[in-house]
């Protein structure tokens, strides 16, 4: 098993053992800033070599996919799950957005397997952050759309930390190019996997602390958190196939679709849909779907891609 996943399990174990292990808040923030920048830079360096216009149709498809997911999940959550409108919309928004760390773990997994991927995939991560969140808010407020403050919302989403650092990293990588990036590579590229490992230790601590929330969530949500990722992965893979990605790229897009956001979405939904109970959305996203994806999901989607594309 990949050592970064072992760090995640160590974090979960520490929580279940009620250890006093805590990562300082400043370390958590530092690691997440680092990961977002590094993912962006790595993508940007490659992007410099691409004719950007050619990406436009792919980019639009990816954005539409992100916006579509909440509309697909909302009815399931509210009818099958009997969740209130705000709760159903909020959970749907988390799955519409994307988990940057799941993307990073999946990239590392494919790299290790020797599978090539489109170098501009980090751009899609940045594109996928927002649409799902906006769709979720629309769903929650559909009775009263005029109450949405679009300006504030757009600002929050597009100038939020995650999008800004991802896009900033991409621009820095693209401007500097492979040679320009060399002096900062020992920090941003060579240490990437190690930093990801540390971050997963923290994610394990957080996810482990979320397991009690699942009692509140109930059987339906646990099942939802286990089954949905695979369905969304198939959607992601289909989109990837349709827009002409390589098997590796389609696998990565599947992982993005299958993942649920736990940085941008919780913060945005807390402000935009206060009636939603964050214990439900975060419990299922972080307590079920995230661990499922990084342990079982990623290899599974990869195998699926191998079958589909051959």
């Amino acid at each position, binding site marked *: 098993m990949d050592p970064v996943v072992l760090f995640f399990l160590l974090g979960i174990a520490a929580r279940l053992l009620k250890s006093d292990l*805590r*990562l*300082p*808040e400043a*370390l*958590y*923030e530092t690691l997440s800033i680092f990961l977002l920048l590094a993912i962006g830079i790595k993508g940007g360096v490659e992007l410099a070599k691409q004719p950007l216009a050619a990406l436009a149709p792919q980019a639009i498809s990816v954005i539409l996919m992100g916006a579509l997911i909440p509309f697909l999940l909302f009815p399931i959550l509210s009818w099958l799950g009997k969740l209130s409108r705000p709760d159903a919309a909020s959970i749907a928004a988390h799955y519409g957005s994307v988990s940057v760390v799941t993307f990073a773990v999946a990239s590392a997994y494919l790299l290790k397997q020797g599978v090539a991927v489109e170098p501009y995939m980090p751009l899609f991560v940045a594109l996928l952050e927002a649409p799902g969140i906006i769709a979720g808010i629309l769903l929650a407020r559909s009775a009263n759309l005029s109450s949405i403050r679009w300006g504030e919302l757009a600002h929050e989403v597009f100038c939020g930390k995650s999008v800004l650092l991802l896009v900033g990293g991409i621009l820095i990588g693209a401007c500097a190019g492979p040679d320009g990036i060399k002096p900062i590579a020992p920090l941003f590229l060579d240490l990437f996997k190690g930093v990801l490992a540390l971050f997963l230790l*923290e994610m394990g*601590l*957080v996810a482990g*602390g979320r397991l009690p929330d699942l009692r509140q969530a109930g059987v339906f949500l646990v099942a939802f958190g286990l089954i949905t990722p695979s369905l969304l992965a198939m959607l992601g893979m289909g989109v990837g196939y349709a827009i002409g990605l390589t098997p590796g790229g389609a696998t990565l897009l599947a992982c993005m679709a299958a993942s649920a956001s*736990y*940085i941008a979405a*919780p*913060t945005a939904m*807390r*402000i935009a849909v*206060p*009636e939603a109970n*964050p*214990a439900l959305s*975060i419990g299922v996203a972080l307590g079920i779907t995230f661990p499922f994806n990084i342990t079982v999901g990623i290899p599974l989607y990869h195998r699926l891609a191998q079958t589909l594309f051959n």
Partner: protein
Amino acid sequence: MPTHARQLLVIITEAALEKNLIKAARQHGAQGYTIYDVRGGGQHGTREDSWEADRSIEMKVICTQEVAQQLSQYILTTYCPHYSVSMFIAEVSVLRPEKY
């Protein structure tokens, strides 16, 4: 030196509300505020993680009784129904009444 009676309104709540609370304080006439990061526990469970959705802040506003009353009332109706919020008011005295 004469001292002047003011009220100290203290609000302990989710970090996500920081920007909104600063705005609300200014709108209700507070001339300043002080914030720091805390951890804690209450009705809604413990909030002790370094993770963004689990951070808490404590906000202090020194102000007139009127401002304290209106601001706390506003927070009570706007945020208390859906957010973890603790609030209390203490009587304090200040030396420069024009500042608060």
